[in-house]
């Protein structure tokens, strides 16, 4: 039994130590907002926050979650009104939408580190992710909206 600190709650998890957090979230807890894409850490679809920083849930075993704090897309805001979520809707970023929870968590991580990340930092962060539909130009727009509104504050 492992205590998992997730979205500001503690969950008692009865699952093998080696089980990747991705499957704990999706199949044990039934929280399906975090998506499965590659399982080997090359598509970043399953990106969540570990102590505020982007990590891939398929690359973290349950055992390694001890002492850490996790946030998934479901825990980002109560009403979908986190600034990143709002920017994503405003710029009509999503197409099929499957990769977007991961993209949004990446944006949160990046903006949490520095309020106005450079273009190269944005490039680097999102280049870990795969989108087959082609939402890259609109992610760029949404990020520039967020960076500019960050600068104004």
């Amino acid at each position, binding site marked *: 039994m492992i205590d998992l600190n997730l979205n500001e709650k503690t969950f008692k998890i009865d699952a093998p130590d080696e089980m990747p957090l991705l499957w704990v979230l999706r*199949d044990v807890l039934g929280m*399906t907002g975090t998506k499965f894409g590659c399982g080997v850490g090359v598509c970043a*679809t399953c990106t969540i926050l570990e102590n505020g920083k982007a990590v891939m849930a398929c690359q973290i075993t349950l055992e390694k979650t001890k002492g850490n704090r996790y946030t998934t897309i479901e825990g980002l805001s109560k009403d979908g009104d986190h600034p990143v979520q709002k920017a994503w809707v405003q710029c*009509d970023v999503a197409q099929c*939408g499957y990769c977007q929870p991961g993209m949004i968590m990446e944006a949160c991580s990046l903006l949490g580190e520095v309020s106005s990340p450079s273009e190269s930092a944005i490039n680097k962060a999102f280049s870990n*992710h*795969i*989108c087959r539909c*082609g939402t890259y130009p*609109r992610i760029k727009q949404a990020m520039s909206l967020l960076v500019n509104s960050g600068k104004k504050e």
Partner: protein
Amino acid sequence: MGLKPMGLDEKAKEILIYQPNPLVSVQSDGKILITVTKSEMGQGVRTSMPMILAEEMGVDPAIFILQQASPSSKYKGISLGTGGSTSLKTMWTPLRKAGLEVKDGLLRAAEIFFGVNRDQLSIRGSSVVTKDGRSVSFGDLVPIAVKLEPNKYLEPLKKVSSRNYLGKDRKRVDAPAIVNGSARYGIDMRPKALKFAAIKRPPVWGNTLKSFDATVTLSVPGVRRVEVITAGVAVVADNSYAAFLGREKLKVRWNSGPHTAFDSDDYQRQLTQNLESPGKVARKDGVYPEPHNDFKTIEATYSFPFHAHAPLEPMNATAHVTQTETHVWVGSQWPDAIVPLASKITSHPQEKVNVHVPLLGGGFGRRSAPDPALEVIELANILKTPVQIIWDRADDLRGGYYHPASIHGMSALLNPSKQEALYYSHKVSSPSILRSSNPKSPDLAVVNTELLGARDVPYGIDAVEISYHELPLHIPLWWWRAIQFVPNIYARECFIDEIALSLDRDPLEYRQSLLSKSIQDPALLERLMNVISIAKEKSNWPNPSRKNRALGVACMDYEGTTVVQVAEVSVSKKRFKIHKIYTVIDCGLVVNPLGVNAQVEGAIVWALSALKSQIHFKKGRVVEKNYKEYPVLRYSEMPEVNTTIVDSDRNPQGVGEPPVPCVIPAVLNAIARAGGPRYRSLPITKR
């Protein structure tokens, strides 16, 4: 008749439903439901289709509640099949008609309600109002509307007159659910007591199961059962992790089939040799000119590799088969096709087979094949409890249904002194997707399908010869975003540039001059000429925006959607960079410009990804197992996108696929014009 809503006095409020058409219903509680008959895979049908109905009905699309259609006989001639960029093209008239019918019924009900004539009534919000200021909600009109006879004298559809919603940017209706993680895809289906299964599949097509030992598998915590189905050996577990781990521990022996030596490099060499086979001549215009010393022949061979679809949501499906009913939840592009096949597996009559269609995490054609649904139904029929079969990325890349390799033999006879081409020939050598997807396909259909984009070359050259050279293949082949147009247009539009270069002509102006001499459909040629002249201006052709860059062009008509694309690239030290893609697209009446722009952006990403990757077969097996070996376009590689949408009064045409094929030749033509190599083989592995 009073203004008090009818029937609301009773405690037991029975909801009455007025449904003049299977696509739309108005309920007495005020809800208006519209049925979306196409699968949502990111192309935006759940946003755009309601706009069409709303415009005709005179209401805001935001008032609709969306229902996703399941296969049913009630939709009559409407196919739930989603592909070929046909959703708006085929649903335009049915949706407008549904809007007109429901509006007519509500207005007739309002005539009775108020005792006034139609000319006194209009629709405002979700009510009908009179000129003297009275108002009744749609819901309150339902009890009258349900008693109406269908209107035999319904006015025919007119040319679109209002554009309150059509042609205006509308944001994706599912966006709020997508950004908060509540949007549900097939892989997110969680019926009660769900088990998860992974399938150990034969590594080579044609191999069959010899024996297996599940002892270790069954000792993996969470693994419950191991069952044999047609697709392979299924490991059923409490969660996906245990299912995958259990599968890893399975010891399986296979009987070798006839394809254990298959090698895609060999096959591509055979495709090249196959260009010499007689083939089927699909088009032969004019006569080959008499030889002359001044004439010059140019020839080139273009090759295109095997591709997978690799949608980000791996294949999966969930089913529950009870004694009397079959339920399957699957992100399918063609749910209709599943019903009769499922009925054969479970022996339930077709009306007891329920196919539920959640959101699709990308489709690109792959999800129109029924295999994920059928294998889970087979397993659920054994288990009699709900089960999801989940594919990992290797299953997805190795599980079949590829876009096939093809080889293109191009040749032309030129008269350099007059700067003109006298003869043009395009031979396509490939296995047939159509025949693989439906072995009963007639030869003529096979030839026409495999030559899409080749046979319909629009250029005015006196002698033209187009032929198809089929080479059968055992691997399951399937439709892929922009289908055969991608390889065929790549070869055609690159070779036209090679001809232009040999004749010392500007490639864009050369296309204009060839089109002006063409004998094809004048309306099509006018559209092509129009988009080319716009692209010329937008891209400042032939001058790139920076000194060390070059522009390349390609154009086509994709079954009614006319597209030209100009790529701006730079080449240095044998590396190239794609800076910008200009697109000019005439797709008929524009329903949602925001959606059209998204589709163009997506098409560019699809095409540029195809420049980077391929599927190989060695010893019968697929080599690639994840995105590491099958790379796709990444964020940092995305060029700037400049799109111009030409508005028109033509009915809406397709837009998901049409902006795909020209991207590749535009880029390759630009690379050649920038001093880089003339690439005739894809993918380009050294950049």
